[in-house]
């Protein structure tokens, strides 16, 4: 039965018989990953309310890790049960797709989040405040920076353990985002994961003003893009008379069959379709960080607490690209000849823009922000391929890239001086002599970003460029490799700085992390090397997961 019809009948029945609304049919088991995470988030809020302050940290950490691991296990279970391929279908009355790409991306997001939560929980890097171990987050977020309340909170040894439920809410939204199968679910998922991120950005313990500024910028620009997206959704509804992906795709390919009397003036109007889809895509490109919607990226990446930056850079990108893929491949394939040239332009601008501007950066976090923009461009090259290879290459790239990013930002948290993290690039001079191991690990991540062979970065880059070349976008590949060459320059520059420059006398020290951050970094290194040397299993997995259910 068509889900459009079922929703429709639901409403008519409800309208006819008030008080007798039938319960919608929800496949709880298939939505288990999302439900587990959101449920844990709610429990986390309760923990904040009812547990004494001293035991909250451990309870929250345990809850988050268990919930994420359980959700990951649920994803594996669903994939093993064939929901990624043969039994793929649309659940929750047309709202959520359970198919290969959705499960692959959810698995990636959960694994990334699990590692990211480790870095959130790190409490050995910042020097203890008044005998209490503290993490990267503000003692009391509501206290005015530098004010009396803040001092009191620091003195009392408060920590913001709320970050765990907040990040769980964000993860829940991200899990829905790439699986959303109608535009309203898409919008709600966007808000569910964006709002917690705005809060997380504002929570840095050090340099709180910078952090709050970044949160405000992110919030304002994010609100803008949400508005764009929502307006686009409205226009698309006006065009198709429905918000489900398959319904809109049907109207695009076959024209509107049943004209809804209320929308008689707008249905089938291509102007609405073009403007509407452009606005929706714009909203997604904002989250992806593609040029020209990238303005927020450097400021937010720089200001946010570094664990949050790492989480955002990795998980948000996965979720947003997942949603973009589904939108372009399921809703708008009929419009391919309209959006492909535009996306060509966006991809080229993003690749070149990110790579060129990154050269002039003097702050490591800003540099990584621009590098993430350049990488968004590379991924877009795979998106444009409009083939199964394109989907699988994007899936693979997202997986490979997120672990490198997480690892790189985790290393950034280790390099510290009196003022907290030493993110000024000049302070990294000679790091290779002070701490060869940390510098070598960071060099591996940089080489992976640069796409040097034998790292995951190369495999991913090869996969997306191959998909693009096969779809006839040869010149896009040429621009891609040229911008890789430009990008290589600034990655190499950091390596030069670390290994070939003399250490400064007042240089930063490398903090010794707890096993939490060590695990995160080690996991990043292992994934980087395994995906570089023996990527076949994961390529195959991505290849199997590359069919969207319609």
């Amino acid at each position: 039965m068509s889900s459009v019809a079922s929703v429709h009948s639901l409403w008519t029945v409800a309208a006819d018989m008030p008080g007798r609304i039938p319960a919608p049919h929800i496949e709880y088991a298939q939505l288990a990953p999302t439900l587990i995470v959101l449920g844990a988030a709610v429990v986390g809020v309760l923990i904040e309310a009812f547990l004494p302050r001293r035991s909250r940290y451990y309870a929250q950490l345990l809850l988050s890790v268990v919930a994420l691991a359980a959700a990951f296990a649920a994803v594996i279970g669903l994939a093993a049960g064939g929901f990624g391929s043969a039994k793929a279908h649309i659940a929750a009355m047309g709202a959520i797709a359970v198919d290969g790409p959705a499960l692959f991306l959810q698995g990636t997001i959960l694994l990334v989040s699990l590692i990211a939560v480790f870095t959130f929980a790190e409490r050995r890097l910042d020097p203890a405040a008044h005998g209490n171990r503290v993490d990267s987050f503000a003692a009391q977020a509501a206290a005015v920076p530098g004010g009396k309340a803040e001092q009191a909170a620091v003195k009392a040894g408060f920590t913001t353990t709320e970050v765990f439920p907040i990040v769980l809410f964000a993860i829940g939204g991200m899990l829905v985002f790439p699986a959303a199968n109608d535009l309203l679910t898409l919008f709600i998922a966007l808000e569910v994961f964006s709002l917690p991120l705005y809060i997380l950005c504002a929570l840095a313990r050090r340099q709180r003003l910078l952090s709050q500024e970044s949160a405000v910028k992110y919030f304002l620009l994010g609100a803008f893009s949400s508005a764009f997206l929502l307006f686009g959704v409205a226009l698309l509804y006006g065009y198709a008379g429905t918000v489900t992906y398959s319904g809109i795709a049907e109207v695009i390919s076959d024209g509107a069959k049943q004209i809804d009397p209320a929308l008689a003036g707008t249905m089938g109007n291509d102007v609405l379709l073009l403007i509407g889809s452009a606005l929706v895509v714009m909203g997604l490109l904002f989250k992806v960080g593609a040029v020209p919607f990238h303005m927020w990226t450097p400021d937010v990446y720089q200001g946010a607490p570094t664990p949050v930056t790492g989480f955002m850079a990795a998980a948000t990108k996965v979720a947003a690209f997942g949603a973009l893929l589904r939108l372009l491949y399921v809703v708008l394939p009929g419009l391919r000849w309209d959006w492909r040239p535009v996306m060509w332009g966006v991809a080229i601008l993003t690749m070149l823009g990110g790579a060129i501007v990154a050269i002039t950066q003097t702050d490591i976090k800003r540099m990584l922000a621009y590098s993430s923009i350049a990488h968004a461009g590379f991924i877009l090259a795979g998106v444009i391929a409009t083939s199964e290879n394109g989907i699988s290459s994007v899936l693979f790239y997202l997986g490979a890239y997120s672990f490198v990013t997480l690892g790189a930002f985790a290393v950034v948290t280790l390099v510290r001086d009196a003022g907290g993290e030493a993110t000024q690039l000049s302070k990294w001079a000679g790091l290779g002599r002070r701490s060869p191991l940390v510098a070598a690990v960071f060099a591996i991540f940089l080489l992976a970003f640069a796409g040097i062979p034998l790292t995951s970065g190369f495999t991913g880059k090869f996969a997306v460029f191959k998909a693009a070349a096969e779809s006839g976008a040869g010149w896009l590949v040429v621009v891609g490799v040229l911008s890789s060459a430009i990008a290589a320059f600034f990655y190499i520059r950091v390596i030069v700085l670390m290994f070939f420059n003399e250490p400064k006398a007042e240089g930063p020290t490398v903090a010794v992390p707890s096993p939490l951050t060590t695990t995160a970094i080690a996991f990043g290194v292992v994934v980087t090397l395994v995906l570089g040397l023996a990527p076949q299993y994961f390529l195959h997995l991505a290849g199997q997961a590359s069919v969207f259910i319609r």
Partner: protein
Amino acid sequence: MSFPLLTVTAAVPAVGAIATAALPAARRTAAKWLALLFSLATLALALLIAFRFRPGATGPYQLTESHTWIPDFGVRYELGVDGIAVALIALTALLIPFVILAGWHDADVLEDTRPNRRWRPTQGFFALILAVEAMVVISFEATDVFLFYLFFEAMLIPMYFLIGGFGDRAGGHGEEEAAAQRSRAAVKFLLYNLAGGLIMLAAVIGLYAVTADQLGTGTFSLQQIVEARAAGKLDIATGTERLLFLGFFFAFAVKAPLWPLHTWLPGAMGESTAPVAVLITAVVDKVGTFAMLRFCLQLFPQASSWATPVILVLALISVLYGALLAVAQRDIKRLIAYASISHFGFIVLGIFAMTSQGQSGATLYMVNHGISTAALMLVAGFLISRRGSRLIADYGGVQKVAPILAGTFLVGGLATLSLPGLAPFVSEFLVLVGTFSRYPAIGVIATVAIVLAALYVLVLYQRTMTGPVRDEVRAMPDLRVRELVVVAPLIALLIFLGVYPKPLTDLVNPAVGHTLSVVDKKDPQPAVQVDAVPGGDRRGPAVRDQDVEAAK
């Protein structure tokens, strides 16, 4: 399944690199011996390859290994060697022990200058050399384009750290300035080669797209592509083939290096220590010229013919320009670097002359240039380490104080100028004959470089070794035992191969015949019978005819 000799040969230095790097900071001497041991083991394996290789056997590659690796990319782990690869693997494995021995003290650190207890440059230096060796060996062995590309590109990273991390403290500036110059040279090296490699990446992807389009499944297997072309199943459009060829050739020309993409070489060779400079020019750069023979010509025969005139002119410019600039150098190591540019010009000339003499000569040239440059550069390194200066003007009269050093320097120099009786003469002669038989004008002009070579080598010798003994040089010790162990075998080899090049030519000729048959070129009928080609009559005509047929 037979013993995977090729894999093991590449794996031994890789394991050695890891083992050396893993040694604790205090075990510096142990690291050196361990690295030497692993390099000798690799040499033994390389000799085993040469021993097991049958030059006359049918089929382009021997000792082949083939395993699935990344089916999604059409990539197989395919190894195989022809005569050219065997010669170059042997060269690489031969030179590395000497490089390690010559660099024995290059990475020593004074105890009080160590920033912390984990800093172990000695271990790093030797581990990186072994890592480069492993990657070079596997790129000589790879018959899968993707596999080759992977290591061709990856070897830049250890090379980069070798250039940027270790210097000879003889640049005439302070330590800080020297470090800055070194890191500039290293970055220039890396950016040039990385840019070349990335452009090649676009061509590699293009090749996949073409094969996937025409053969159904994309493949990178050199043999499969060559066979498919011969069978007419694969027909790359002319324009596409030319673009792909240019993508590949650009990377190899940067690596080789060919004028005008050569500018990274003098800096990299000048700023690095002498053993690393040998590693660059005698080992790593050979991958570039080797790849022209193996990949450019065989994958894109028509495009190769199309581009030949331009490439020959570029090679000719390299030959003359390198020689002229070598004459004008004031720095010993930069002089040798420019001489190398001139010699790489000869190699490219030989390859693209598309005659059997030219290509045999080019392959021989790769080997001989490796040995002769190693001899000259390593002795120059010993000289520089004694005086602490790279400038020619700082020397004079060395032959009176250190006669053995001067003598070995002279032999290395004479080999560089291709004196008859020393190995490089044979190859240079073959290249010139091969070029002349098809392109007489270019052959004649290239001959001028021989005169220039005599000029820069002899002037270098005269200014540094003869004349009145300078005060700074007076206390200079002669070659030590370790240094003699490095130089003597190289010189012996130069003389041996100069008098009796047959083992090498026998090895190389069938492979060259195969390459030419793939390119579908026959030697022009010489108006005068050239009898001077050593081993030219041993080409095994039966094999060649078969290959020609197979190619059609």
